[in-house]
């Protein structure tokens, strides 16, 4: 820029440049904030509206009320009758998925990279293959198979599929993270007569703790956010998870959007807290999300 204005003194053009870049940052910030917050503002806005106001041209709630949240908390609407038990289901499935993913993932990565089994690459490739299959493409056969096993409408079916799709990523991260743990520790323990299980349990797992936190959170959130399989495999009754219940609102003719949005906010808060609480632990591996959802 300074080359285009040779008359300007260096300091002055630098100041101009700074002002321009400040203005640029300001404009970009505003655009990014509007872009990011518009749908979020909308969900909060609708959740604070009364039923009549939902169908209006208001941009800002005219008479904000917590009515919709009260309905959600007291389960005072037929689609929300078992809301808290659905939250419980989501949580319960998420925790089991996280624990199983951690158990299977650590055992597998320990075998591949610490015990150095001969065909470890086959396991790595199996994980990679699973990682690149779009999850939804297996929904149809998976549904059929679970029917054969007699597991439809059983949380085990959903847990199985979520563990299947969470483990590959767990294995990658564990292998990567495990590379920083000196193998000499294993060898020393082995000379002292430790069995592979003792090495796994007493050396490998404690040193892997940060990766365990990251992957545990990742698996929990993957499961908490998952819709398609829960929708297909948990058709009704007391086993349904929250996303399935939220999806059911759309099936009716007139969805009570304020209740739906209030319930959706309550459902979104736990992962938000987990995300922002564990963000620093994640920043190394960028492990959160669940793109495959």
């Amino acid at each position, binding site marked *: 820029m300074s080359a285009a204005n040779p008359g300007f003194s260096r300091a002055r053009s630098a100041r101009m440049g700074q002002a321009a870049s400040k203005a640029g*940052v300001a404009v*970009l910030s505003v655009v*990014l*904030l509007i872009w*990011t*917050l518009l*749908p*979020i503002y909308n*969900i909060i806005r*609708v959740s604070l509206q009364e039923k009549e106001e*939902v169908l209006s*041209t208001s*941009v800002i709630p005219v008479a904000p009320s917590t009515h919709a949240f009260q309905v959600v908390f007291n389960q005072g609407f037929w689609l929300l009758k078992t809301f808290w038990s659905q939250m419980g289901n989501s949580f319960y499935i998420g925790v089991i998925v996280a624990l199983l993913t951690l158990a*299977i993932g650590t*055992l*597998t990565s320990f075998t591949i990279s610490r015990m*150095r*089994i001969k065909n470890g690459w086959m396991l790595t490739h*199996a*994980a990679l293959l699973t*990682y*690149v299959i*779009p999850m*939804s*493409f297996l*929904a*149809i*056969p998976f*549904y*059929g198979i679970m029917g054969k096993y007699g597991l439809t409408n059983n949380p085990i079916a959903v847990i*199985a599929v979520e*563990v299947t799709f969470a483990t590959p*990523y767990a294995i*990658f991260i564990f292998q*990567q993270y495990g590379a920083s743990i000196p*193998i000499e520790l294993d060898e020393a323990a082995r000379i002292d007569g430790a069995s*592979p*299980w003792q090495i796994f349990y007493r050396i490998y797992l404690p040193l892997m703790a940060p990766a365990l936190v990251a992957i545990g959170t*990742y698996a929990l*959130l993957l499961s908490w*956010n998952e819709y*398609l399989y829960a929708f*297909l495999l948990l058709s009704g009754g007391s086993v349904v998870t929250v996303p399935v219940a*939220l*999806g059911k*609102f759309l099936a009716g003719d007139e969805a009570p*959007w304020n209740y*739906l949005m209030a319930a*959706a906010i309550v*459902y979104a808060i736990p992962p938000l807290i987990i*995300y*922002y609480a564990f*963000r620093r632990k994640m920043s190394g*591996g*960028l492990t*959160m*999300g669940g*793109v*495959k*959802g």
Partner: protein
Amino acid sequence: MGVSTAVESSDVPAARQGLSGARLAGSDRLWAVAFATPYVAVFLAFVIYPVFYGLWLGSNPASYRALFADPVYPRTVVNTLLYLLFGVNLKLGLALLLSGFFLRKGLWTKTLLLVFMLPWAIPALPSYLSINWMLNGQWGLVNNIIWALFQMDGPPWLDSSDLALGSVIYAHIWKWLPFWTLIFVAGRMAIPRELYEAADVDGASVRQKFTQVTLPLMAGLYLVCTLLSTIWALGDFNAVRFISGGGPALSTHVLATLGIRNAFELGDPGLGMATVLTALPLLIPLVILLMRQLRRNEVTI
């Protein structure tokens, strides 16, 4: 899901090879088998079995005849391609540019990044439901704002097929832009600062630094991200399901949602599987390309 960048190659098994001395002894081998069994069992029962069962379900030629005769199908293929083309490329292009912005130092950028990450941290469903209602032609927030500002009716976002598909793509970008931006921020942080300092000494402009330093060094990562994002977007069900619902008049389905519809709403798993399997000519080359890129070790997932 994560892609952690490592410009310096971190080939885990190779680094270990030197240490691998004796073969596993008898009891150790039993331990190894026991440790590997859970994953092998999961893989066989829940990946291999469904894959082959799915291929078998989708092996009836009659299903394909029915599929290709379905007037919804060609539109669905076009939608899928448009969704991938615009959704993935716009998203990644924006993410690459924004990643440069978020590298700036200072409290404001850090705070903005925290807000900017929200779409990623919020589960997909609440956001998509919100966007659905936000884009409602009659009572949605967007058209309410248009009315408040200009006293005119906004377009029926979800009632015209082009706008509805555009809305789906918008929702996809909104949801996943933060994730890929973070990936590119990490990628840019791995570029040695000296390169930029050297460019400064040579009097390079901002644009020159971007095209001559950043782009060449990020190309490998960018390609991997494009492939991975395309694969994931190909399997994405939620955006179409909750933004447009495939409507109006089944005009915004993509292969993933049409497959589920054919299998479950029409009750024809063979037809549903056939629908999904017609994505294989696209999926398989993408996977092969991705594997090849990953093997080059520029990027590790």
